[in-house]
């Protein structure tokens, strides 16, 4: 296996991990599929650019590795056989390979512009509000591939009162829970809060539809009302119910400004359970 290189050493760990039984089962599979190959697509020449193959082994199953270098893609190369070729544009295709056999006809990888996005750092994670709690409602259930829908009864087209909500995953050490309903898309470039309730006991696991537990403090929403109202200006809207678990109590007063409280909440870096819901009129 001359072509087994450092680049594939990762796969060797899978092989080592496989038990004898699995190996035997796979061997049965090999016997079963032997002679079942063929029938694959063989492309035709399309007349685009040929990516440089300098240093690469000849096409058609050569086992000789070529020069090691990375393509200009941001992906690490370094494996024998990877060439210094700069990939052609996405739109361009390849000609036949040097040995005359049918060659790649599909598009080539495009060198991306700009730097690679960075994964969240541990510091960011530590300061972020982490969406790792579960927030659900028997009234907001996704069906098939469609997003979960909010029934009209929970909007100004109905009773305009909140649905039952239940949750799980509140971290230990949580001092207080706060519930919000917000428009996903801002209104006039500002976050629009439809409902905000603070002061919820962290031991709670649910609220009933239209009822709030003792100690709950209701804030003033985007409509200027101390309470709940989901009332899209148009044919519909997408809303986000959010349950924040706060590591410290923020002690808001009755009728607090919902937007201001949310800013404070994001500053204390807690956890959140999020439940998107779509409401469409008619």
């Amino acid at each position, binding site marked *: 296996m001359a*072509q*087994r290189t450092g680049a*594939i050493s990762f*796969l060797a760990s899978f092989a080592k991990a496989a038990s004898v039984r699995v190996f035997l089962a796979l061997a*049965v*599979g*090999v*016997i*079963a*599929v*032997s002679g079942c*190959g063929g029938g*694959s*697509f063989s*492309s035709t020449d399309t007349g685009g650019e040929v*990516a440089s*193959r300098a240093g690469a082994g000849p096409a058609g*199953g*050569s086992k000789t*590795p070529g020069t090691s270098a990375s*393509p200009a893609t*941001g992906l*690490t190369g370094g*494996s024998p*056989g*990877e060439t210094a070729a700069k*990939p052609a544009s996405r739109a361009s295709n390849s000609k036949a*390979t040097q040995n005359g056999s049918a*060659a*790649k*006809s*599909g*598009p080539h*990888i*495009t060198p*991306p*512009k*700009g730097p*690679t*996005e*960075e*994964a*969240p750092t541990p510091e*960011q*994670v530590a300061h*972020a509000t*982490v*969406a790792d709690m*579960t927030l659900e409602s028997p009234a907001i259930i996704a069906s098939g591939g469609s*997003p979960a829908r909010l029934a009209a009864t929970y909007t100004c087209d109905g009773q305009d009162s909140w649905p039952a909500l239940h949750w799980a995953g509140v971290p230990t050490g949580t001092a207080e829970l706060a519930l919000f309903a917000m428009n*996903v*898309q*801002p209104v006039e*470039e500002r*976050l629009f809060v439809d409902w905000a309730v603070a002061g919820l006991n962290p031991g709670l696991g649910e609220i009933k539809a239209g009822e709030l537990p003792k100690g709950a403090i209701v804030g003033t929403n985007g409509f200027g009302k101390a309470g709940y109202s989901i009332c899209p200006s148009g044919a519909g809207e*997408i809303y*986000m119910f959010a349950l924040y678990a706060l590591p410290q109590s923020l002690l808001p007063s009755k009728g607090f400004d919902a937007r201001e409280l949310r800013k404070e909440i*994001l500053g204390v870096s807690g956890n959140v359970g*999020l439940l998107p819901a*779509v409401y469409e009129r008619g």
Partner: protein
Amino acid sequence: MRTKATAIGAALAALAVLCAMFATSASAAPAWKFEGKSLEGTEVVMGGAIESSMTIPGLTTKCEDFLYKLTVENSAGTGKGSLTEVPLYNCTTNSKACTVGTIGAEKLPWPTHLTTVSTTPYIIIEGVKVAIYYEGEECVLGETLVTVTGSAGGSIDNAAETATFNSSTLSASKTELKALSQKIEWNGLFPTEAFQWHREQALSVS
């Protein structure tokens, strides 16, 4: 003695059933091919999404470039692979209030395998985990870390040498990606291109 014979008989019957199952699944599973020939050993396949976006209801996150590096091999006649790198570039959202602070694939490598769904070859990616940290004071997900997890199945077009991921392919392959406890949409069209031993060769699966 009779018990022992019965046990051996049962074991043989079970083995026969297992063999039949493996034979069926193996014959149904496609393999990686270059120039129509089954890949021997391994190959590095790379590609970049021509378009790729992910939608949490109401908020679409789009990356201008979404590359991948996949080490592939045929194991027992079935195409397998290991997605080792998934660099993302220029990611934005469809909301003016929300920016993508950071985004990255986690828990790599992600295992992959080929399968057939209604005569169409599919690649299944398992163990997907992408962390996204959104920013924006007026953003509903501002200063929030959202993680996308699950598996994704994409249909492979041998003629175009591309893999397509969308809600139909995820559904057809019985895979799903989830964020916020809900199924989310992921759309992407990924060209496939060998970068090691089979550069410039036609890549197909069958």
